[in-house]
């Protein structure tokens, strides 16, 4: 048994299968950042820090004429989103019920996915995570509200990256509202705006809940690293006669190695 304490939960194999399947279905489309950046791991719950390959000099030393320095690392952060499942629903599931209420789990999955996306794209100061948009060496550029201007804005971002010597392919994370606009829009001649933008980028366009606007970034590799400790997992906290209290948990760090490899587009 590991720290998730799953064997202690009053949940049958069938119940766990339901919860894990539902969580995976909800998390997979929402965890957008992982689709666009380098993914390292999972390295396990014990993985605590990302190697930065740097050291800082220490002023003092245990012995005269001996230099000293300390390695610098980026600590992993833990995200945890709590949810509950009614004990009656779990019993019904074991009887074969297919309409179990998993609303609390669904909300938790969305919350933790949004948290991860926000950390990667907008940053998280206390966690020492510089987001792609926040760390970008380029000034944010307007995406605008009018989809007619989207191809020009995206092409401009790609050209900016190219001009800086940052090769492709390029991908784009799109916040919910601009994503909706893109998928519902056909340009003159009936061509889907989505296809047009994809051709400009040469890479994927990813629905990214939690992101304001859009981010165009290089996917050549080595520029952005998501260092995964424990991948998304469901753990057990406690239970009473009415409900089982669970959580979704993950640990990770995020490193921007090339601030000039991403461009933020604002709405």
């Amino acid at each position, binding site marked *: 048994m590991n720290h998730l304490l799953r064997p202690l939960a009053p949940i049958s194999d069938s119940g766990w299968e339901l919860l894990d*399947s539902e969580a*995976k279905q909800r998390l997979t489309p929402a965890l957008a950042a992982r*689709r666009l950046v380098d993914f390292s791991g999972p390295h*396990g719950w014990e993985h605590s820090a990302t190697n930065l390959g740097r050291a800082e000099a220490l002023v003092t030393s245990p012995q005269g004429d001996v230099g000293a320095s300390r390695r610098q690392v980026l600590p992993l952060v833990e995200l945890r989103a709590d949810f509950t499942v009614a004990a009656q629903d779990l019993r019904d599931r074991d009887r074969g019920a297919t309409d179990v209420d998993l609303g609390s789990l669904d909300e938790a999955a969305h919350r933790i996915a949004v948290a991860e996306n926000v950390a990667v794209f907008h940053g998280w100061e206390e966690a020492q995570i510089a987001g792609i948009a926040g760390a970008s060496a380029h000034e944010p550029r307007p995406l605008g509200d009018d989809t007619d201007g989207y191809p020009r804005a995206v092409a401009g971002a790609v050209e900016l990256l190219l001009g800086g010597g940052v090769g492709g392919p390029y991908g784009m994370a799109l916040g919910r509202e601009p994503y909706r606009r893109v998928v519902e829009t056909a340009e003159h001649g009936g061509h889907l705006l989505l296809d047009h933008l994809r051709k400009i980028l040469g890479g994927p366009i990813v629905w990214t809940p939690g992101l304001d606007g859009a981010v165009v970034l290089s996917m050549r590799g080595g520029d952005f690293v998501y260092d995964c400790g424990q991948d998304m*997992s469901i753990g057990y906290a406690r239970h009473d006669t009415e409900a089982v209290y669970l959580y979704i948990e993950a640990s990770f760090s995020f490193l921007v190695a090339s601030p000039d490899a991403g461009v933020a587009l604002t709405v």
Partner: protein
Amino acid sequence: MGFDQYHEPPHELPDETRTFARMCASLTEEAEAIGWYEQRLAVEGDGDAAAIMRDAQGEEFKHFSMDLEFLLRRKPLWREIARGILFQTGDIVEHGEASEARATGGGEQDEAGPADERSGSLGIGGDAGSVR
């Protein structure tokens, strides 16, 4: 001379498949030799003999690694899955599930399923996301 490495009539197999089968057999033999030397070393009391065996086992490590690299170069999917498992720290089973899901990029691995029994991980890895 035996032809045990062939599971199908050799004359019906293309050349590259016969070569692949030979290298799989070689890989197996190298792994067996590594295991045999490990056992011999565990019981050998003569230091000189043990040193020679240790040196010989090192040769088998090399042979096994070369065989494996050859096979991985011939099977890109195998190579891709191995890339996520070999030389990593952390939970091997978790790496295996995530690497397989990443390498296959769909099909069964994209289906929602139960978490890994040991780690509890949902095995989402780096292939998450709604991509258009």
